[in-house]
């Protein structure tokens, strides 16, 4: 049995492959820890109640709402935020697909959308359009970039299939 709080307590988090230390109260959400304490402002605070998806991050590869996740419960887990998706300054293929298909307008929901899409494709690399719609239904977009989002995810899936199987890629 391990007891923390209610005062601040030091915890260690693995965020985007880097070890981070923060001193937080147990009540602090992962979202606020990422944004305020670690300066990783890609995940957005929009509803703070699990009703929109803009705070989506990956915890051990699973898409969760970081506004409903306590940071203290993420010790020992792998946290991936949008800042951890692009490698060495170049966009992840999913991010490129979002740009190519104009799958965004204001962009405030976009980091959450991209990470939800990432989790979806990890689990189902070749989704149908209906599966993409279902898989992306936990991320609202007030600007209405949904058509582009679905196209971007389908395109990224297709490209992933081509690149992951060299030589077997059929061109349309």
């Amino acid at each position: 049995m391990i007891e923390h709080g209610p005062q601040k307590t030091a915890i260690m988090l693995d965020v985007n492959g880097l070890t981070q230390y923060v001193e937080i109260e147990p009540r602090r959400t992962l979202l606020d820890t990422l944004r305020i304490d670690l300066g990783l402002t890609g995940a957005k605070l929009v509803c703070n109640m699990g009703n929109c998806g803009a705070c989506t991050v990956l915890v051990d590869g699973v898409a969760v709402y970081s506004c409903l996740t306590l940071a203290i419960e993420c010790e020992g887990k792998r946290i991936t935020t949008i800042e951890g998706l692009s490698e060495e300054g170049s966009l992840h293929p999913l991010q490129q697909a979002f740009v190519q298909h104009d799958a965004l307008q204001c962009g405030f929901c976009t980091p959450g959308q991209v990470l939800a899409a990432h989790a979806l494709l990890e689990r189902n690399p070749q989704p149908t359009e209906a599966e993409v719609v279902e898989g992306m239904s936990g991320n609202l977009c007030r600007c209405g970039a949904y058509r582009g989002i679905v196209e971007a995810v389908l395109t990224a899936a297709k490209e992933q299939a081509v690149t992951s199987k060299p030589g077997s890629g059929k061109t349309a």
Partner: protein
Amino acid sequence: MQPFIHIDIASAEEVIPLLDARTRPLAGGTDMLPLMKEGIVAPERLINLKRATNLRYIRVADDGLHIGALTTLDDLERHPDVRRDYTALAQASALAASPQLRNMATIGGNILQQVRCWYYRGDFHCWLKGGDLCHARDGRNEYHAIVEQSPCVAVYPSDPPAALIALDARLRIIGPQGERLVSVAEFLQPPTAQRRSLHGLGPNELIIEVHVPKSAAPAQRSIYLKAMDRATWAYALVSVAVTAEVAADVLRNVRIVVGAVANTPMRATTAEALIEGQSLTEELIREAGRAAVADAAPLEHNGYKLPLTRNLVGQALRDLRGSSS
């Protein structure tokens, strides 16, 4: 959100001595944290159950399905045996909330979800919170009950429990006196003046497992339908779970459970009796639908739930009849 002490435990057994009115267990957090953020509950200590890994499992056994209380709705909707043999449960899980919430929310927590009534969740000291008045009765009640069970007219919000009742599921609950088994149907109760909650869980008890008995009949089928006012990610306007043994157009051992019409999911026993063993004609289907709402008395803004319940019960029966092969 009020500050609290956070406690990690390694197994469910450690929890019981710790629990009391001010010390609450935390599973998926998808309901507990919003309730805490709104200040509706303010526990001084939260016990994190998620490191008790022995509570997340789906076991298929001779006597049916054993589901650990920390099993997520996502686990349930994806499990091939659940999908095949306990279809309504998989459907109800898949129709709940959003993918991320289903990744987080556990079946134990889902059964205990508090009402989504906007007065309860808002700044109103309503009857269910210990006040004197149910504000929804004379206020805006489009999402509320059409069957009166208590002074509160909020409806029970969760999807999977209606399916669990139709499937005759039981809960294994541990407490200071040891373990007890209770059917989901008995566990979910309308609130009373003394117990302002929608279930019969004691303050120092914990749900550890859901057991869904295996049907003796190989032709047992089940279905869950849910009406929403958006394509997805909404609480049910009305939902219906039905289980039955299906042979051609005859349904036997029928159980019809209607969700989001009362404080608890409701068995539609008159409708069940009407169609039991009968050749399921369109006329009989309509009659069953009418029987399902015979006792209903809508409020000012939710009259639509009458036709919706009738229609949805009828549709579920039609779909089940069509599923015989």
